[in-house]
C-alpha cells in the first residue's frame, strides 16, 4: 500500500469539492492511502505576489510538516505541487536551508531536505501506470472524445518537471485518458493557459482565454474537456456562464476532472463517489455516452 500526505490546497476543499471526492475515491480504489494532516496550510503560491520570502516560508513549513510525519506529499493542485517541489530544489542549497530553518524554528520546525512532492496525476501515471489503470476499467467510455487540458503548472517550470513530460508536446494526460477507455482528442489550443491566476485581480483577459479554448472545442465537436487542476476547472466549467454572458450564447462544453473520468471508468457512483452533480455545466451528455442514464 502506498501512503501519502494528502495536500488539498486552498481552493479544492472550499470551492471544488467534487475534485476532492473523486480523488479520494479513486485513490482508495487503487490502493493509495491518503493521510490528512491538520498542520497543512496554503503552499505560498499566491503569497509570492506580496513577498517571495513569505511564499518560501509557507512552502518550507508545509514540507517540514510532511517530513516530520515521514510522508511524501500527494497534491491535488498542480500549482501547489510545483510550488512545494520547487522549494525542495531551492532548499538543497545549504545556506538557504539554514536561513529558512532559522525562521521555521520560530514555530518549532526544521526542514531537513527529505520531502518529495508530486501531483495526483503524476502519482497515478508513475506509481500505478496506464496499464494497471486499464486493468481496473469496468465501464466502456470509448464513445467519449475528450480534449486533454494539462494546465501550465503541470508542465512548468523545467527544473521541477524535467523528465516527467514534454512541455512542448505533453503526452501523459492523453495516455491517462486513453487508459480510462476514452479517446483523447487533438486540438489546436491545447497549450493555452486558463488565466485563473490573474482572474482575481483582472478577469477580462482570463475570460478571453477561456473563450478561446471553449470555442476551439465547440468547433472540434469535443464531448468534453478533461482537466487536472481545480483552478482550470473553475475557469472552464465555472466561468462558462460568464463567457456566454460576455461573448454571446454558444454550446456548453462539459468539463471533467481527471479522477472523475477515471472514477466513472472504474465503476464509481457518479454522484456519491464522484460529485458529477456539482458541475456548473450539465454532464448529461457524458453520462449518456458512458452508458449511464441521466440522474433525476
Amino acid at each position, binding site marked *: 500500500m502506498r501512503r501519502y500526505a494528502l495536500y488539498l490546497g486552498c481552493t479544492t476543499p*472550499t470551492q471544488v*469539492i467534487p475534485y476532492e471526492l473523486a480523488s479520494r475515491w479513486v485513490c482508495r480504489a487503487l490502493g493509495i492511502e491518503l493521510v490528512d494532516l*491538520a498542520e*497543512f*496550510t496554503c503552499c505560498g503560491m499566491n*503569497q509570492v505576489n506580496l513577498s517571495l520570502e513569505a511564499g518560501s516560508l509557507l512552502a518550507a513549513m508545509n514540507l517540514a510538516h510532511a517530513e516530520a510525519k515521514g510522508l511524501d506529499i500527494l497534491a491535488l493542485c498542480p500549482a501547489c505541487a510545483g510550488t512545494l517541489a520547487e522549494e525542495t530544489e531551492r532548499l538543497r542549497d545549504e545556506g538557504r536551508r539554514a536561513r529558512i530553518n532559522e525562521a521555521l524554528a520560530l514555530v518549532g520546525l526544521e526542514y531537513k531536505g527529505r520531502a518529495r512532492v508530486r501531483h495526483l496525476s503524476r502519482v497515478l501515471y508513475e506509481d500505478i501506470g496506464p496499464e494497471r489503470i486499464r486493468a481496473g476499467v469496468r465501464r466502456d467510455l470509448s464513445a467519449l472524445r475528450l480534449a486533454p487540458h494539462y494546465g*501550465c503548472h503541470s508542465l512548468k517550470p523545467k527544473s521541477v518537471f524535467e523528465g516527467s513530460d514534454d512541455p512542448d508536446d505533453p503526452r501523459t494526460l492523453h495516455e491517462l485518458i486513453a487508459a480510462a477507455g476514452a479517446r483523447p482528442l487533438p486540438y489546436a489550443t491545447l497549450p493555452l493557459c486558463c*488565466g485563473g491566476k490573474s482572474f482575481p485581480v483582472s478577469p477580462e483577459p482570463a475570460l478571453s482565454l477561456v473563450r478561446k479554448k471553449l470555442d476551439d472545442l465547440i468547433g472540434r465537436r469535443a464531448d468534453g474537456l478533461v482537466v487536472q487542476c481545480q483552478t482550470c476547472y473553475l475557469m472552464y466549467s465555472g466561468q462558462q456562464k460568464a463567457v456566454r454572458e460576455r461573448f454571446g450564447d454558444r454550446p456548453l462544453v462539459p468539463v471533467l476532472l481527471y479522477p472523475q473520468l477515471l472514477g466513472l471508468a472504474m465503476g464509481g457512483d457518479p454522484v456519491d463517489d464522484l460529485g458529477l452533480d456539482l458541475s456548473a455545466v450539465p454532464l448529461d451528455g457524458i453520462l449518456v455516452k458512458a452508458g449511464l442514464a441521466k440522474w433525476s
Partner: protein
Amino acid sequence: MDRRDNASSSAPALGPDASFRRDVLRHEEARGLYACFSCGACTAGCPISEVFPEFSPRKLAKRVKLGLKRDVLEDPYIWRCTTCRGCEQHCPQNVRLYDILNVLKNMAAEAGFAPPAWVEQTRWVMRTGLVYPRDAALAKKRRARSLPALMSRGEQAERLIARTGADKIKAREEP
C-alpha cells in the same frame, strides 16, 4: 555584466533611476535580466499578451533595464501575469521573467500598489491557514458529502508571514 547593451536608447548608462535596476538585480531570481536581448520570444509565448497586447513581458524587461521605476511599479499590468511561466520556457537566454515579475510585484506592494485581492488572501492565510474564509455553510456542505472537517489553522503561517513584514502591506485604493 555588460551595460553597453542599452547604448541605442537615450540616456542609456544610468537611466532615470539606476538604483531601481540594482534593487531588482539584488534578488537572485532576477540576475539573468542582463542577458535579455529583447527578442520577444517571451511576449510571443505569453497568453495574456495574446488577448491583451498592452501586456508585454519583453517591454517590461526593457523598462526595468532602463530604470523606469515609477512607470513599472505603478503599472497595473504587472498584476495581470497569470503565472503560466511561458515566458521563461520560451526565453533563449534563460531570463526568469516570471520570477522577475514577482520581484517587481513585491516592490510595488511595498510601495502601496498591491491589489486588494492578494492582500485579502494573505490576511485569510494568517487566520484560517488557507487563502479563503471557512464558514459553517462550507462545513455543512463537506459533511453532507462525507468529507472530513477542515482542520488547518493560521497561527504558524501568521508568525512566519509577520517575520517577512508582508502582514503590514496595505492594498492600493481602488478607483
